[in-house]
């Protein structure tokens, strides 16, 4: 393959060019309730070329090899147009040249498991919630994504890396009277098929929570002190803080850039945040990013002080900061952009009981249900929660969305738990999807969050 890719790049007149060819294998099985609605394994492939010419950087995605010359020409023309219309030429931070082939160590390669076995496992899990009378439907899927990537650039780097992601998950829906509630269930990761086995208790537990939600009270809108669990803390870290650690999001965003300066005091002293794609076994693991840079851990916040950010080669040069290896694409249809790998709040020293005690009166919210950010403002949903009275769990609540301001919230984090957990499935959208976006955190206590009920 590298020979063909080299032939394509040999036609370039640019000072730098790279090409990524990917074969994307997908296996998907979906149940809606008892009904199997999709099953199949497919493979597709395509190319992305990027060129840096006269200080203009442009990319093109294409699917047919015969379009390669035309694509390269288009990318070069676009790069020239960028260069003519830009005051500041794009530069790339220097990186080592690598020649490497990397496949992750897997506990059971999903390619060696028959689709019948995958179907049987999924059906077994799907039957668990459906055995309860009040569960009216499920939307449960098995998803297997195998990216075989070939990356080559004009500096001499040649990398073949495979990323293998398996997950089982979906939505369980129950109804009582006119009230419909649902809950998400998920499991999976980057370590092979075996992580999906023996997950019956997960489906049992989620179903029980769902049935309790049918009896829960609606959250009442207002301002509350809240304790959020690991999954929500992870989503908060990802949505509210993490995205503004992505240099491409703040590069041409003067007011955010002014606030996100290295050394700025943003959070309380107990807050430490790191992004590390190199943690073996976590969902967000990879060795090289999609511009051939070796991934490395980045300490983003140290004792509340902003200490690093995530970069591509372009932004590392523009910010005059170190390269980090965080430029990742969804697949062959996209040029890479800056993404988080495994972002997490480092654990503190508080136990859950101590945190509930110090919360006193407020809300204990658990598990994320979607999140979004816009500048300083973030909103995300919680799957369920409890009213806390005098440090004790009282009634369960449902239909909870929380909203806040990043900077105020970082300063309102008053305790960090000792119980770090990473998520097993991801799905961050930023123009393209990142199914391996992984976040983690311990329980954290936040003062004065806006909670929107209904």
């Amino acid at each position, binding site marked *: 393959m590298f020979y063909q890719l080299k032939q394509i790049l040999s036609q370039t007149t640019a000072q730098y060019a790279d090409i990524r060819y990917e074969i994307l294998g997908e296996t998907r099985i979906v149940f809606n309730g008892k009904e199997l609605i999709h099953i199949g394994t497919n493979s597709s492939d395509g190319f992305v070329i990027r060129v840096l010419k006269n200080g203009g950087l442009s990319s093109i*995605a294409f699917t047919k090899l015969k379009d390669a010359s035309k694509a390269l020409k288009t990318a070069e023309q676009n790069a020239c147009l960028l260069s003519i219309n830009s005051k500041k030429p794009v530069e790339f931070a220097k990186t080592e040249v690598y020649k490497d082939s990397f496949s992750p160590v897997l506990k059971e390669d999903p390619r060696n498991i028959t689709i019948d076995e995958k179907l049987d496992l999924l059906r077994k899990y799907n039957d668990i919630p459906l055995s309860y009378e009040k569960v009216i439907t499920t939307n449960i899927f098995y998803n297997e994504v195998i990216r075989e990537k070939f990356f080559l650039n004009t500096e001499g780097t040649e990398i073949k890396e495979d990323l293998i992601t398996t997950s089982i998950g979906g939505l369980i829906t129950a109804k009582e009277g006119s009230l419909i509630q649902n809950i998400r269930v998920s499991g999976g990761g980057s370590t092979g098929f075996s992580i999906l086995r023996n997950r019956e208790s997960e489906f049992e537990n989620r179903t029980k929570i769902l049935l309790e939600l049918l009896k829960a009270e609606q959250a009442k809108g207002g301002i509350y002190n809240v304790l959020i669990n690991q999954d929500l803390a992870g989503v908060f870290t990802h949505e509210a803080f993490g995205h503004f650690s992505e240099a491409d999001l703040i590069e041409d965003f003067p007011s955010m850039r002014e606030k996100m300066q290295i050394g700025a005091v943003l959070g309380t002293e107990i807050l430490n945040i790191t992004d590390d794609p190199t943690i073996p076994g976590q969902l967000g693991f990879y060795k090289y990013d999609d511009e051939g840079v070796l991934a490395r851990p980045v300490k983003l916040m140290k004792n509340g002080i902003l200490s690093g950010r995530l970069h591509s080669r372009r932004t590392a040069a523009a910010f005059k900061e170190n390269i980090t290896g965080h430029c990742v694409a969804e697949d062959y249809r996209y040029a890479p952009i800056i993404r988080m790998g495994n972002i997490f709040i480092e654990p503190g020293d508080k136990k859950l009981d101590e945190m509930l005690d110090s919360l006193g009166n407020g809300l204990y919210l658990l598990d994320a249900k979607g999140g979004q950010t816009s500048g300083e403002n973030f909103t995300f949903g919680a799957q369920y929660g409890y009213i806390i009275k005098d440090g004790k769990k009282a009634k369960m609540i449902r239909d909870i969305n929380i909203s806040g301001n990043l900077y105020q919230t970082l300063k309102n984090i008053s305790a960090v738990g000792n119980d770090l957990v990473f998520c097993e499935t991801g799905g961050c959208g930023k123009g393209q999807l990142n199914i391996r976006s992984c976040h983690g955190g311990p329980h954290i206590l936040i003062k004065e969050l*806006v909670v929107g009920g209904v």
Partner: protein
Amino acid sequence: MEELLQIAQKKGCKAEVFFSEGYSDIVSFEDSKLKNIDSKILSGISLRIIKDNKLGFAYTRNLLNKEELVNNALKSLKGGVDGFFEFPLTQNLKNLDTYSPDIEDISNNLLVEECKRLCDTILQKISCQINVTAQKTVNSLRLINTSGTELSVISSSYALTTELVYPYSSASLYRVIAGKSFIKAGDEYINFLTENYGHSLKEVKANSGRMKVIFLPETLYVLMWRLQTAASSNSLYQNISPLAGRIGEKVFDEKFTVFNDPLNDSIPGARAFDDEGVQCRQFPIVEKGIFRNFYYDLYFAERLKTDSTGNGFRASVSSKPSPALRHIYIVPGDKSFSDLIQSIDKGIIVGGALGAHSGNIPNGDFSIGISPAIYVENGNVVGHIKDAMAAGNIYETLTNIIDVENKTYISHGGNCPSILFNEVNVIIK
């Protein structure tokens, strides 16, 4: 494509081949500076087969091996996905004008120049961070099946989005212009953005409570998402639609009428047939507040013993068709946008929504961060509020319509006007 059908037929299958091919160029400016020009030339092909009432599916980007694609589809039959429907025979469709040859003359240079012109014009009126993207796309689809259907369409589209960003947040006021070919952004477009942004730039404080709220065409999708979910045959089949058994019932305000409007070829994306070859047609979802129709694809139509409404669309060649409302049209009312604002004593314009995808969507609940929350007092835009959320349920909110704007705009939610609602719960920190 024909060869694929023949191979599938030889293996005893009924079959459908769907082919999509297109290219796009997108130019983006951030903070009034040219940031990116990206292009795509993508194609793909997918195959559905039905054998012994079971449905198989496969897709690929490069049709290097036709037998392999058919074999992948045959393998997927083994799972046992039901396929009791027939691929339709669709012929003699109305010819829609979906392609403007002028699109081929739009150079990336022209897109850059238009974005630059907009930034310069706006900066002469107001100082702010401006992000602009301009995109041109040409896409052709072809669909054939063993029932004898042979359909194709070529579509062109041009879209430009201008965002004026509020300082210290990426909350922005934005508006889209879209057409089948290049449309120069005019004064009305620019003035809507600069005037409303200018008047709302100041940060103001307000109290929580129930108040009047305008959802712009750009943010109405928050409510329409819930309605689309409820009106989908998929939700009906799964017994999770609050609209089940309510056809003919007045569910919403009588000022609210929503059509499935795929045949309007004055705007980009019109379709005479859906992605499974069923004829598309215009029909009301809600008419003067009365719920009129669910929408169906072939699969759910068969399950529910009715006919497809021509709403089977695919997210891409790698997904099977599913029921989708791609062509929403909300019928405009008789008040101008400034009339809507003038009738607010105290209220908010939802300029952007955060977290529209979270919450209990089948139930109709929404709970969104408003970003920006543009504050209106005594008929005038006076500023914006930080940390505001709007929460409610569409079966209440859509019964509380004060007025509907007299003009529609194309946005990702469809072809919609602004709508002024009464008594929406707003929580402000």
